[in-house]
Protein backbone atom coordinates (compact mmCIF):
# COMPACT_ATOMS: atom_id res chain seq x y z
CA UNK A 1 0.00 0.00 0.00
CA UNK A 2 2.89 2.34 0.72
CA UNK A 3 4.84 1.43 -2.38
CA UNK A 4 3.49 4.36 -4.32
CA UNK A 5 4.34 6.87 -1.62
CA UNK A 6 7.32 9.14 -2.05
CA UNK A 7 7.92 9.43 1.65
CA UNK A 8 6.96 6.88 4.25
CA UNK A 9 7.83 7.46 7.87
CA UNK A 10 7.47 4.16 9.74
CA UNK A 11 7.42 3.85 13.49
CA UNK A 12 9.96 6.64 13.95
CA UNK A 13 10.98 7.57 17.46
CA UNK A 14 13.57 10.13 18.53
CA UNK A 15 15.14 10.02 21.97
CA UNK A 16 17.38 12.71 23.40
CA UNK A 17 19.46 12.05 26.49
CA UNK A 18 19.26 15.04 28.80
CA UNK A 19 20.42 15.88 32.29
CA UNK A 20 16.96 15.14 33.61
CA UNK A 21 16.58 11.79 31.91
CA UNK A 22 15.59 10.52 28.52
CA UNK A 23 13.50 12.90 26.45
CA UNK A 24 11.23 11.22 23.92
CA UNK A 25 10.79 13.96 21.36
CA UNK A 26 9.02 11.84 18.75
CA UNK A 27 6.99 8.88 19.93
CA UNK A 28 6.53 6.26 17.20
CA UNK A 29 5.11 8.28 14.38
CA UNK A 30 3.86 6.92 11.08
CA UNK A 31 3.36 9.22 8.13
CA UNK A 32 3.09 8.88 4.38
CA UNK A 33 3.21 11.40 1.59
CA UNK A 34 2.68 10.86 -2.11
CA UNK A 35 4.61 12.62 -4.84
CA UNK A 36 3.28 16.09 -5.59
CA UNK A 37 1.10 16.16 -2.46
CA UNK A 38 1.24 18.57 0.44
CA UNK A 39 1.12 17.58 4.09
CA UNK A 40 0.69 19.97 6.96
CA UNK A 41 2.05 19.03 10.39
CA UNK A 42 0.47 21.15 13.08
CA UNK A 43 1.19 21.35 16.78
CA UNK A 44 2.23 23.68 19.55
CA UNK A 45 5.85 24.38 20.51
CA UNK A 46 7.58 21.34 21.86
CA UNK A 47 5.23 18.80 20.33
CA UNK A 48 8.05 17.24 18.38
CA UNK A 49 7.23 18.47 14.90
CA UNK A 50 10.64 20.02 14.34
CA UNK A 51 12.42 16.92 15.63
CA UNK A 52 10.30 14.86 13.29
CA UNK A 53 11.36 16.98 10.34
CA UNK A 54 14.99 16.67 11.38
CA UNK A 55 14.54 12.94 11.63
CA UNK A 56 13.19 12.82 8.10
CA UNK A 57 16.06 14.98 6.88
CA UNK A 58 18.60 13.00 8.88
CA UNK A 59 19.83 16.21 10.50
CA UNK A 60 19.31 15.27 14.11
CA UNK A 61 21.74 16.51 16.77
CA UNK A 62 24.64 14.19 17.51
CA UNK A 63 23.24 12.97 20.80
CA UNK A 64 19.86 12.00 19.42
CA UNK A 65 18.89 8.36 18.95
CA UNK A 66 16.61 7.47 16.09
CA UNK A 67 14.65 4.28 15.64
CA UNK A 68 12.31 3.27 12.85
CA UNK A 69 12.52 3.70 9.10
CA UNK A 70 12.32 6.71 6.85
CA UNK A 71 11.59 5.40 3.38
CA UNK A 72 12.20 7.95 0.71
CA UNK A 73 11.85 7.00 -2.92
CA UNK A 74 12.34 3.37 -1.98
CA UNK A 75 15.47 3.94 0.14
CA UNK A 76 15.70 3.84 3.90
CA UNK A 77 17.42 7.13 4.73
CA UNK A 78 18.34 5.91 8.20
CA UNK A 79 20.54 3.20 6.75
CA UNK A 80 22.04 5.30 3.99
CA UNK A 81 25.74 6.00 4.00
CA UNK A 82 26.63 9.65 4.73
CA UNK A 83 28.01 10.13 1.25
CA UNK A 84 24.96 8.80 -0.61
CA UNK A 85 22.76 10.78 1.75
CA UNK A 86 24.72 13.89 0.93
CA UNK A 87 24.19 13.34 -2.77
CA UNK A 88 20.47 12.95 -2.19
CA UNK A 89 20.21 16.33 -0.61
CA UNK A 90 19.08 19.35 -2.54
CA UNK A 91 18.16 17.19 -5.53
CA UNK A 92 15.63 15.11 -3.67
CA UNK A 93 15.25 16.61 -0.24
CA UNK A 94 15.25 20.31 0.50
CA UNK A 95 14.39 22.37 3.54
CA UNK A 96 13.46 25.92 4.46
CA UNK A 97 14.07 26.85 8.07
CA UNK A 98 12.14 29.21 10.26
CA UNK A 99 14.43 32.19 10.62
CA UNK A 100 16.31 33.23 7.50
CA UNK A 101 18.48 35.60 9.50
CA UNK A 102 20.13 32.63 11.20
CA UNK A 103 19.76 30.03 8.46
CA UNK A 104 21.68 32.07 5.89
CA UNK A 105 25.39 32.48 6.44
CA UNK A 106 25.97 36.16 7.33
CA UNK A 107 29.47 36.43 5.90
CA UNK A 108 28.79 34.85 2.51
CA UNK A 109 26.98 36.58 -0.34
CA UNK A 110 23.55 35.48 -1.49
CA UNK A 111 25.12 34.53 -4.78
CA UNK A 112 27.68 32.26 -3.16
CA UNK A 113 25.05 30.48 -1.10
CA UNK A 114 22.87 29.90 -4.13
CA UNK A 115 25.59 29.01 -6.61
CA UNK A 116 27.44 26.58 -4.37
CA UNK A 117 24.38 24.34 -4.23
CA UNK A 118 23.99 24.46 -7.98
CA UNK A 119 27.62 23.70 -8.56
CA UNK A 120 27.75 20.91 -6.04
CA UNK A 121 24.76 18.95 -7.28
CA UNK A 122 24.21 20.02 -10.87
CA UNK A 123 27.88 20.52 -11.71
CA UNK A 124 27.27 23.74 -13.55
CA UNK A 125 30.10 26.02 -14.40
CA UNK A 126 30.32 29.45 -12.84
CA UNK A 127 28.63 31.46 -15.55
CA UNK A 128 25.71 29.07 -16.05
CA UNK A 129 25.23 28.77 -12.32
CA UNK A 130 25.17 32.53 -12.03
CA UNK A 131 22.48 32.84 -14.69
CA UNK A 132 20.46 30.08 -13.09
CA UNK A 133 20.75 31.84 -9.73
CA UNK A 134 19.35 35.05 -11.20
CA UNK A 135 16.45 33.10 -12.74
CA UNK A 136 15.70 31.48 -9.39
CA UNK A 137 15.71 34.78 -7.54
CA UNK A 138 13.34 36.24 -10.12
CA UNK A 139 11.08 33.21 -9.86
CA UNK A 140 10.64 33.71 -6.12
CA UNK A 141 9.70 37.32 -6.66
CA UNK A 142 12.87 39.18 -5.72
CA UNK A 143 13.27 42.46 -7.62
CA UNK A 144 16.63 43.32 -9.23
CA UNK A 145 17.97 39.79 -8.87
CA UNK A 146 21.38 40.42 -10.49
CA UNK A 147 22.28 42.91 -7.80
CA UNK A 148 21.30 40.54 -5.03
CA UNK A 149 23.97 38.07 -5.97
CA UNK A 150 26.68 40.24 -4.47
CA UNK A 151 24.67 41.35 -1.47
CA UNK A 152 24.75 39.91 2.01
CA UNK A 153 21.76 38.56 3.97
CA UNK A 154 21.68 41.47 6.40
CA UNK A 155 21.12 43.87 3.53
CA UNK A 156 17.76 42.31 2.71
CA UNK A 157 14.45 42.49 4.54
CA UNK A 158 13.09 39.46 6.39
CA UNK A 159 10.66 38.53 3.66
CA UNK A 160 13.33 38.82 0.99
CA UNK A 161 15.67 36.65 2.97
CA UNK A 162 13.09 33.91 3.24
CA UNK A 163 12.49 34.14 -0.50
CA UNK A 164 16.22 33.60 -0.96
CA UNK A 165 16.07 30.59 1.35
CA UNK A 166 13.20 29.23 -0.74
CA UNK A 167 15.16 29.87 -3.92
CA UNK A 168 18.08 27.93 -2.47
CA UNK A 169 15.78 25.08 -1.50
CA UNK A 170 14.18 24.94 -4.96
CA UNK A 171 17.42 25.36 -6.88
CA UNK A 172 18.03 21.70 -7.65
CA UNK A 173 14.41 20.75 -8.27
CA UNK A 174 13.84 18.66 -5.17
CA UNK A 175 11.17 15.99 -5.01
CA UNK A 176 10.29 16.92 -1.44
CA UNK A 177 10.47 20.29 0.26
CA UNK A 178 10.09 20.58 4.01
CA UNK A 179 9.17 24.06 5.23
CA UNK A 180 9.66 24.30 8.99
CA UNK A 181 7.62 27.23 10.28
CA UNK A 182 8.47 29.21 7.13
CA UNK A 183 6.53 32.30 8.11
CA UNK A 184 6.73 32.37 11.89
CA UNK A 185 9.66 34.78 11.96
CA UNK A 186 8.10 37.12 9.41
CA UNK A 187 5.73 40.03 9.46
CA UNK A 188 2.09 39.04 9.28
CA UNK A 189 1.69 41.02 6.08
CA UNK A 190 4.44 39.03 4.38
CA UNK A 191 3.26 35.66 5.61
CA UNK A 192 0.55 35.21 3.04
CA UNK A 193 2.91 36.13 0.21
CA UNK A 194 5.47 33.58 1.26
CA UNK A 195 2.89 30.85 1.71
CA UNK A 196 1.36 31.62 -1.67
CA UNK A 197 4.81 31.50 -3.22
CA UNK A 198 5.43 28.08 -1.72
CA UNK A 199 2.06 26.79 -2.88
CA UNK A 200 2.60 28.15 -6.37
CA UNK A 201 6.03 26.64 -6.74
CA UNK A 202 4.80 23.36 -5.37
CA UNK A 203 2.07 23.12 -7.94
CA UNK A 204 4.29 24.25 -10.76
CA UNK A 205 7.01 21.76 -10.02
CA UNK A 206 4.72 18.98 -8.93
CA UNK A 207 6.80 18.78 -5.79
CA UNK A 208 5.82 17.07 -2.54
CA UNK A 209 5.80 19.48 0.38
CA UNK A 210 5.52 19.30 4.14
CA UNK A 211 4.57 22.49 5.95
CA UNK A 212 5.27 22.49 9.65
CA UNK A 213 3.47 25.09 11.70
CA UNK A 214 1.75 25.80 14.98
CA UNK A 215 -0.96 27.72 13.20
CA UNK A 216 -3.89 25.76 11.75
CA UNK A 217 -4.76 28.80 9.68
CA UNK A 218 -1.57 28.34 7.65
CA UNK A 219 -2.51 24.88 6.43
CA UNK A 220 -6.12 25.65 5.60
CA UNK A 221 -6.55 25.65 1.87
CA UNK A 222 -2.88 25.07 1.20
CA UNK A 223 -2.40 21.43 2.08
CA UNK A 224 -3.93 18.18 0.92
CA UNK A 225 -3.65 16.49 4.27
CA UNK A 226 -3.05 17.56 7.86
CA UNK A 227 -1.49 15.68 10.75
CA UNK A 228 -1.92 17.13 14.21
CA UNK A 229 0.85 16.38 16.68
CA UNK A 230 0.82 16.55 20.43
CA UNK A 231 3.52 15.48 22.87
CA UNK A 232 5.50 13.62 20.25
CA UNK A 233 2.66 11.68 18.68
CA UNK A 234 0.32 12.18 15.79
CA UNK A 235 -3.11 12.47 17.38
CA UNK A 236 -5.23 13.18 14.34
CA UNK A 237 -4.73 12.86 10.64
CA UNK A 238 -7.16 13.64 7.87
CA UNK A 239 -7.50 15.26 4.45
CA UNK A 240 -7.58 18.99 5.08
CA UNK A 241 -11.20 19.85 4.27
CA UNK A 242 -12.38 16.85 6.29
CA UNK A 243 -10.33 17.92 9.28
CA UNK A 244 -11.70 21.40 9.37
CA UNK A 245 -15.28 20.43 8.85
CA UNK A 246 -15.33 17.32 10.89
CA UNK A 247 -12.52 17.20 13.42
CA UNK A 248 -12.59 14.52 16.04
CA UNK A 249 -9.84 15.41 18.47
CA UNK A 250 -10.62 17.72 21.34
CA UNK A 251 -7.12 19.08 20.91
CA UNK A 252 -7.71 19.95 17.26
CA UNK A 253 -10.97 21.60 18.22
CA UNK A 254 -9.16 23.66 20.81
CA UNK A 255 -6.45 24.62 18.31
CA UNK A 256 -9.01 25.80 15.82
CA UNK A 257 -10.85 27.78 18.44
CA UNK A 258 -7.64 29.60 19.28
CA UNK A 259 -7.37 31.14 15.80
CA UNK A 260 -8.73 34.68 15.72
CA UNK A 261 -11.68 34.84 13.34
CA UNK A 262 -12.35 37.71 11.00
CA UNK A 263 -16.07 37.62 11.57
CA UNK A 264 -15.97 37.39 15.33
CA UNK A 265 -17.26 40.35 17.31
CA UNK A 266 -14.55 42.84 18.40
CA UNK A 267 -12.88 42.07 21.72
CA UNK A 268 -14.01 38.48 21.69
CA UNK A 269 -11.76 36.62 24.09
CA UNK A 270 -9.62 34.00 22.39
CA UNK A 271 -10.18 30.70 24.10
CA UNK A 272 -6.68 29.60 25.01
CA UNK A 273 -6.02 26.01 25.93
CA UNK A 274 -5.48 25.93 29.66
CA UNK A 275 -2.53 24.07 31.12
CA UNK A 276 0.77 23.14 29.50
CA UNK A 277 2.06 20.24 27.44
CA UNK A 278 3.49 17.41 29.52
CA UNK A 279 7.15 17.32 30.46
CA UNK A 280 8.67 15.13 27.74
CA UNK A 281 11.09 13.56 30.20
CA UNK A 282 8.16 12.33 32.27
CA UNK A 283 5.62 10.95 29.82
CA UNK A 284 2.10 10.32 31.03
CA UNK A 285 0.76 6.81 31.19
CA UNK A 286 -2.50 7.54 29.48
CA UNK A 287 -3.42 10.06 26.81
CA UNK A 288 -0.97 12.95 26.87
CA UNK A 289 -3.70 15.51 26.54
CA UNK A 290 -6.01 14.32 29.31
CA UNK A 291 -5.05 16.95 31.97
CA UNK A 292 -6.20 19.70 29.61
CA UNK A 293 -9.16 17.97 27.94
CA UNK A 294 -12.75 18.77 28.77
CA UNK A 295 -13.97 15.34 27.87
CA UNK A 296 -11.36 13.33 29.76
CA UNK A 297 -12.26 10.52 32.09
CA UNK A 298 -10.59 7.71 34.00
CA UNK A 299 -9.88 5.66 30.93
CA UNK A 300 -8.06 8.55 29.31
CA UNK A 301 -5.81 8.80 32.32
CA UNK A 302 -4.77 5.17 32.40
CA UNK A 303 -4.81 4.04 28.80
CA UNK A 304 -3.12 5.48 25.76
CA UNK A 305 -5.52 5.70 22.83
CA UNK A 306 -4.20 4.39 19.53
CA UNK A 307 -4.24 6.24 16.24
CA UNK A 308 -6.89 4.58 14.11
CA UNK A 309 -9.62 5.46 11.69
CA UNK A 310 -13.25 4.85 12.57
CA UNK A 311 -15.36 5.90 9.66
CA UNK A 312 -12.68 5.98 6.99
CA UNK A 313 -9.05 4.89 6.94
CA UNK A 314 -8.06 8.31 5.65
CA UNK A 315 -9.24 10.07 8.79
CA UNK A 316 -7.42 8.74 11.83
CA UNK A 317 -7.45 9.97 15.39
CA UNK A 318 -6.31 8.84 18.81
CA UNK A 319 -9.08 9.46 21.29
CA UNK A 320 -11.58 7.64 23.41
CA UNK A 321 -14.08 10.46 23.24
CA UNK A 322 -13.85 11.92 19.79
CA UNK A 323 -16.20 14.75 19.04
CA UNK A 324 -18.58 15.20 16.15
CA UNK A 325 -18.54 11.50 15.58
CA UNK A 326 -21.61 10.02 14.10
CA UNK A 327 -23.61 8.58 16.94
CA UNK A 328 -23.04 4.93 17.75
CA UNK A 329 -19.66 4.59 16.06
CA UNK A 330 -16.38 4.29 17.93
CA UNK A 331 -15.66 5.06 21.63
Amino acid at each position, binding site marked *: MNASKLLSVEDVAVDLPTARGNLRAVDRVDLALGAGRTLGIVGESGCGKTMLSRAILQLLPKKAKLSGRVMFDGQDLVRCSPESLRKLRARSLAVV*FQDPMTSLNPVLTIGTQLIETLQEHLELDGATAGRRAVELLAAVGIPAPEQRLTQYP*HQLSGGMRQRVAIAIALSCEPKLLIADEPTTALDVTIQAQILDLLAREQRRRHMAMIIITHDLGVVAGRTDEVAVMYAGRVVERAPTPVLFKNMHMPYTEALLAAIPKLDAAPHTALPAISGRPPDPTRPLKGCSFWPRCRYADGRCESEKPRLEGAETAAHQFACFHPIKLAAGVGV
Partner: protein
Amino acid sequence: MLGFLARRLFYLVPVLLAVSLLTFLIASLLPGDLAYVILGDQATPEKVAALRHDMGLDEPILLRYLGWLGHVLEGDFGRSFRTGQTVLQAVSERLPVSFELMLFAQIIALAIGVPLAIVCAARSGGTFDRFMTGTAFGMLSVPAFLSAILLIYLFAVELRWLPATGYVPFTEDPIGNLRFFVLPSLTLGLAEWPGIMRVLRSDMIATLQEDYITLAKAKGLKPSRILFVHALKPSSLTLITITGINIGRLMGGTVIVETIFALPGIGRLVVGAIGTRDLIILQGTVLCIACGYVLMNFIVDMLYAVIDPRIRHGHA
Protein backbone atom coordinates in the same frame (compact mmCIF):
# COMPACT_ATOMS: atom_id res chain seq x y z
CA MET B 1 33.88 51.96 3.29
CA LEU B 2 35.82 55.18 2.92
CA GLY B 3 33.70 56.77 5.61
CA PHE B 4 34.57 53.93 7.93
CA LEU B 5 38.26 54.34 7.15
CA ALA B 6 38.15 58.08 7.74
CA ARG B 7 36.40 57.68 11.07
CA ARG B 8 38.98 55.20 12.30
CA LEU B 9 41.87 57.39 11.18
CA PHE B 10 40.33 60.27 13.07
CA TYR B 11 40.29 58.21 16.23
CA LEU B 12 43.93 57.26 15.72
CA VAL B 13 45.35 60.72 16.31
CA PRO B 14 44.32 61.22 19.94
CA VAL B 15 45.51 57.70 20.76
CA LEU B 16 48.95 58.44 19.32
CA LEU B 17 49.06 61.69 21.26
CA ALA B 18 48.09 59.93 24.46
CA VAL B 19 50.80 57.35 23.87
CA SER B 20 53.42 60.04 23.32
CA LEU B 21 52.35 61.82 26.49
CA LEU B 22 52.50 58.61 28.47
CA THR B 23 55.98 57.85 27.14
CA PHE B 24 57.15 61.30 28.04
CA LEU B 25 55.71 61.04 31.53
CA ILE B 26 57.39 57.71 32.11
CA ALA B 27 60.71 59.18 31.09
CA SER B 28 60.23 62.09 33.43
CA LEU B 29 59.77 59.66 36.33
CA LEU B 30 63.51 59.58 36.63
CA PRO B 31 64.22 60.27 40.31
CA GLY B 32 67.61 61.69 39.60
CA ASP B 33 68.33 64.06 36.79
CA LEU B 34 69.11 63.26 33.19
CA ALA B 35 71.92 65.76 33.20
CA TYR B 36 73.65 63.93 36.02
CA VAL B 37 73.36 60.67 34.16
CA ILE B 38 74.81 62.13 31.01
CA LEU B 39 77.72 63.86 32.71
CA GLY B 40 78.40 60.88 34.91
CA ASP B 41 81.49 61.43 37.06
CA GLN B 42 82.26 64.67 35.31
CA ALA B 43 79.27 66.24 36.95
CA THR B 44 79.86 69.49 38.74
CA PRO B 45 77.03 71.76 39.82
CA GLU B 46 77.92 74.34 37.15
CA LYS B 47 78.15 71.81 34.32
CA VAL B 48 74.92 70.21 35.41
CA ALA B 49 73.12 73.55 35.50
CA ALA B 50 74.51 74.47 32.10
CA LEU B 51 73.56 71.16 30.56
CA ARG B 52 70.11 71.35 32.08
CA HIS B 53 69.61 74.74 30.57
CA ASP B 54 70.91 73.55 27.20
CA MET B 55 68.57 70.58 27.19
CA GLY B 56 65.69 72.67 28.42
CA LEU B 57 65.32 70.54 31.53
CA ASP B 58 64.65 73.58 33.71
CA GLU B 59 61.44 74.48 31.95
CA PRO B 60 57.98 73.46 33.18
CA ILE B 61 56.99 69.96 32.23
CA LEU B 62 54.22 70.89 29.81
CA LEU B 63 56.54 73.10 27.76
CA ARG B 64 59.14 70.35 27.75
CA TYR B 65 56.55 67.89 26.50
CA LEU B 66 55.40 70.19 23.73
CA GLY B 67 58.98 70.94 22.76
CA TRP B 68 59.82 67.29 22.65
CA LEU B 69 56.66 66.53 20.70
CA GLY B 70 57.55 69.24 18.22
CA HIS B 71 60.91 67.64 17.60
CA VAL B 72 59.34 64.23 17.26
CA LEU B 73 56.90 65.44 14.63
CA GLU B 74 59.82 66.83 12.66
CA GLY B 75 61.44 63.43 12.77
CA ASP B 76 63.92 64.21 15.52
CA PHE B 77 63.49 61.55 18.16
CA GLY B 78 66.68 62.40 19.90
CA ARG B 79 70.27 61.33 19.76
CA SER B 80 72.09 58.91 21.98
CA PHE B 81 74.64 60.61 24.17
CA ARG B 82 76.60 57.40 24.35
CA THR B 83 76.90 56.42 20.72
CA GLY B 84 75.95 59.60 18.93
CA GLN B 85 73.50 57.71 16.76
CA THR B 86 70.03 59.16 16.35
CA VAL B 87 67.14 57.13 17.63
CA LEU B 88 65.66 56.77 14.17
CA GLN B 89 68.93 55.43 12.82
CA ALA B 90 69.21 52.91 15.61
CA VAL B 91 65.60 51.83 15.25
CA SER B 92 65.61 51.51 11.48
CA GLU B 93 68.75 49.41 11.60
CA ARG B 94 67.11 46.98 13.93
CA LEU B 95 63.54 46.99 12.79
CA PRO B 96 64.01 44.37 10.05
CA VAL B 97 65.42 41.89 12.55
CA SER B 98 62.54 42.20 14.98
CA PHE B 99 60.07 42.19 12.15
CA GLU B 100 61.52 39.00 10.73
CA LEU B 101 61.37 37.38 14.16
CA MET B 102 57.77 38.42 14.81
CA LEU B 103 56.71 37.33 11.36
CA PHE B 104 58.25 33.87 11.61
CA ALA B 105 56.95 33.43 15.14
CA GLN B 106 53.42 34.34 14.15
CA ILE B 107 53.58 32.04 11.11
CA ILE B 108 54.73 29.15 13.27
CA ALA B 109 52.06 29.88 15.88
CA LEU B 110 49.34 30.01 13.22
CA ALA B 111 50.66 26.95 11.41
CA ILE B 112 50.40 24.93 14.62
CA GLY B 113 47.36 26.56 16.18
CA VAL B 114 44.90 26.93 13.30
CA PRO B 115 44.91 23.37 11.93
CA LEU B 116 44.74 21.96 15.45
CA ALA B 117 41.83 24.24 16.27
CA ILE B 118 39.93 23.17 13.15
CA VAL B 119 40.48 19.47 13.74
CA CYS B 120 39.57 19.73 17.40
CA ALA B 121 36.43 21.73 16.65
CA ALA B 122 35.32 19.25 13.99
CA ARG B 123 35.88 16.35 16.38
CA SER B 124 35.05 18.16 19.59
CA GLY B 125 34.72 15.95 22.62
CA GLY B 126 36.81 13.18 21.11
CA THR B 127 40.08 11.83 22.44
CA PHE B 128 42.28 13.92 20.17
CA ASP B 129 40.38 17.04 21.11
CA ARG B 130 40.70 16.47 24.83
CA PHE B 131 44.37 15.62 24.53
CA MET B 132 45.19 18.68 22.46
CA THR B 133 43.14 20.98 24.68
CA GLY B 134 45.00 19.70 27.71
CA THR B 135 48.35 20.15 26.00
CA ALA B 136 47.48 23.68 24.97
CA PHE B 137 46.45 24.47 28.51
CA GLY B 138 49.71 23.13 29.86
CA MET B 139 51.71 25.09 27.30
CA LEU B 140 50.14 28.29 28.57
CA SER B 141 52.19 27.81 31.71
CA VAL B 142 55.42 27.60 29.75
CA PRO B 143 56.57 31.12 28.91
CA ALA B 144 58.94 32.05 26.13
CA PHE B 145 62.04 32.13 28.26
CA LEU B 146 61.40 28.63 29.55
CA SER B 147 60.88 27.25 26.05
CA ALA B 148 64.02 29.08 25.04
CA ILE B 149 66.08 27.37 27.71
CA LEU B 150 64.65 24.02 26.77
CA LEU B 151 65.18 24.48 23.06
CA ILE B 152 68.70 25.80 23.52
CA TYR B 153 69.55 22.88 25.75
CA LEU B 154 68.10 20.34 23.31
CA PHE B 155 69.22 21.69 20.00
CA ALA B 156 72.27 23.77 20.72
CA VAL B 157 73.90 22.11 23.66
CA GLU B 158 73.01 18.45 23.37
CA LEU B 159 72.32 17.84 19.71
CA ARG B 160 74.34 20.74 18.38
CA TRP B 161 72.11 21.06 15.36
CA LEU B 162 71.43 24.76 15.60
CA PRO B 163 73.32 27.78 16.92
CA ALA B 164 72.32 29.22 20.26
CA THR B 165 73.11 32.82 19.45
CA GLY B 166 74.12 34.96 16.56
CA TYR B 167 72.81 36.73 13.54
CA VAL B 168 73.69 37.40 9.96
CA PRO B 169 71.60 39.59 7.66
CA PHE B 170 69.40 37.87 5.11
CA THR B 171 70.92 39.79 2.29
CA GLU B 172 74.37 38.51 3.16
CA ASP B 173 73.65 34.87 3.81
CA PRO B 174 70.04 33.68 3.49
CA ILE B 175 70.62 30.16 4.75
CA GLY B 176 72.69 31.30 7.68
CA ASN B 177 70.14 33.93 8.50
CA LEU B 178 67.36 31.36 8.59
CA ARG B 179 69.43 29.00 10.70
CA PHE B 180 69.90 31.67 13.31
CA PHE B 181 66.18 32.38 13.29
CA VAL B 182 64.95 28.82 13.77
CA LEU B 183 65.27 28.56 17.53
CA PRO B 184 64.12 32.11 18.35
CA SER B 185 61.05 31.90 16.08
CA LEU B 186 60.21 28.46 17.38
CA THR B 187 60.47 29.73 20.96
CA LEU B 188 58.05 32.56 20.36
CA GLY B 189 55.78 30.47 18.17
CA LEU B 190 55.51 27.79 20.83
CA ALA B 191 54.52 30.43 23.33
CA GLU B 192 51.78 31.81 21.12
CA TRP B 193 50.06 28.80 19.53
CA PRO B 194 48.04 27.67 22.59
CA GLY B 195 46.23 30.98 22.84
CA ILE B 196 45.36 30.94 19.15
CA MET B 197 44.25 27.33 19.19
CA ARG B 198 42.01 27.63 22.25
CA VAL B 199 40.13 30.67 21.15
CA LEU B 200 39.70 29.62 17.52
CA ARG B 201 38.55 26.19 18.60
CA SER B 202 35.89 27.45 20.98
CA ASP B 203 34.73 29.98 18.42
CA MET B 204 34.43 27.34 15.74
CA ILE B 205 32.58 24.99 18.05
CA ALA B 206 30.07 27.79 18.64
CA THR B 207 29.86 28.53 14.93
CA LEU B 208 29.27 24.88 14.10
CA GLN B 209 26.11 24.99 16.23
CA GLU B 210 24.60 27.76 14.15
CA ASP B 211 21.54 27.23 11.98
CA TYR B 212 23.36 28.15 8.81
CA ILE B 213 25.69 25.22 9.28
CA THR B 214 22.69 22.91 9.57
CA LEU B 215 21.31 24.40 6.39
CA ALA B 216 24.66 23.95 4.68
CA LYS B 217 24.52 20.28 5.63
CA ALA B 218 20.92 20.12 4.43
CA LYS B 219 22.08 21.48 1.08
CA GLY B 220 24.35 18.49 0.75
CA LEU B 221 27.60 20.45 0.56
CA LYS B 222 30.87 18.64 1.03
CA PRO B 223 31.93 18.47 4.69
CA SER B 224 35.26 20.11 3.85
CA ARG B 225 33.50 23.03 2.24
CA ILE B 226 31.20 23.41 5.23
CA LEU B 227 34.16 23.41 7.59
CA PHE B 228 36.49 25.69 5.70
CA VAL B 229 34.12 28.09 4.01
CA HIS B 230 30.97 28.21 6.09
CA ALA B 231 32.47 27.71 9.52
CA LEU B 232 35.97 29.08 9.28
CA LYS B 233 35.08 32.36 7.64
CA PRO B 234 32.83 33.67 10.44
CA SER B 235 35.37 32.46 12.97
CA SER B 236 38.22 34.10 11.15
CA LEU B 237 37.16 37.35 12.73
CA THR B 238 38.13 35.91 16.07
CA LEU B 239 41.37 34.73 14.53
CA ILE B 240 42.19 38.26 13.43
CA THR B 241 41.32 39.53 16.92
CA ILE B 242 43.73 37.07 18.48
CA THR B 243 46.45 37.89 16.02
CA GLY B 244 45.88 41.54 16.80
CA ILE B 245 46.06 41.05 20.54
CA ASN B 246 49.09 38.88 20.02
CA ILE B 247 51.06 41.70 18.50
CA GLY B 248 51.49 43.31 21.90
CA ARG B 249 52.57 40.01 23.39
CA LEU B 250 54.87 39.36 20.46
CA MET B 251 56.54 42.70 21.01
CA GLY B 252 57.17 41.83 24.62
CA GLY B 253 58.29 38.41 23.53
CA THR B 254 60.83 39.79 21.08
CA VAL B 255 62.47 41.68 23.92
CA ILE B 256 63.14 38.45 25.73
CA VAL B 257 63.93 36.28 22.75
CA GLU B 258 66.27 38.79 21.12
CA THR B 259 68.17 39.16 24.36
CA ILE B 260 68.50 35.43 24.89
CA PHE B 261 69.50 34.64 21.34
CA ALA B 262 71.55 37.81 20.82
CA LEU B 263 69.57 39.04 17.82
CA PRO B 264 70.20 42.72 17.08
CA GLY B 265 66.58 43.76 17.11
CA ILE B 266 64.61 46.56 18.71
CA GLY B 267 63.91 44.56 21.85
CA ARG B 268 67.60 44.13 22.43
CA LEU B 269 68.07 47.82 21.73
CA VAL B 270 65.70 48.59 24.59
CA VAL B 271 67.39 46.20 26.97
CA GLY B 272 70.80 47.45 25.97
CA ALA B 273 69.77 51.04 26.48
CA ILE B 274 68.60 50.17 29.98
CA GLY B 275 71.93 48.56 30.68
CA THR B 276 73.99 51.53 29.52
CA ARG B 277 71.54 54.09 30.96
CA ASP B 278 71.17 55.52 27.49
CA LEU B 279 67.89 57.14 28.38
CA ILE B 280 67.39 59.19 25.24
CA ILE B 281 67.55 56.05 23.13
CA LEU B 282 65.27 54.33 25.58
CA GLN B 283 62.66 57.04 25.47
CA GLY B 284 62.76 57.35 21.70
CA THR B 285 62.66 53.63 21.09
CA VAL B 286 59.77 53.11 23.48
CA LEU B 287 57.86 55.82 21.62
CA CYS B 288 58.55 54.13 18.29
CA ILE B 289 57.46 50.76 19.60
CA ALA B 290 54.30 52.11 21.18
CA CYS B 291 53.31 54.00 18.03
CA GLY B 292 54.04 50.94 15.93
CA TYR B 293 51.78 48.95 18.22
CA VAL B 294 48.94 51.43 17.81
CA LEU B 295 49.32 51.37 14.04
CA MET B 296 49.36 47.58 13.93
CA ASN B 297 46.14 47.46 15.92
CA PHE B 298 44.65 49.96 13.55
CA ILE B 299 45.49 47.75 10.60
CA VAL B 300 43.91 44.80 12.38
CA ASP B 301 40.75 46.87 12.85
CA MET B 302 40.70 47.54 9.14
CA LEU B 303 41.00 43.84 8.45
CA TYR B 304 37.86 43.23 10.50
CA ALA B 305 35.88 45.34 8.08
CA VAL B 306 37.21 43.38 5.15
CA ILE B 307 36.28 40.02 6.64
CA ASP B 308 32.91 40.82 8.17
CA PRO B 309 30.72 42.80 5.82
CA ARG B 310 28.32 43.58 8.65
CA ILE B 311 30.92 45.83 10.25
CA ARG B 312 31.53 47.65 6.98
CA HIS B 313 27.86 48.44 6.67
CA GLY B 314 27.58 49.33 10.32
CA HIS B 315 25.40 46.43 11.25
CA ALA B 316 27.60 44.51 13.67
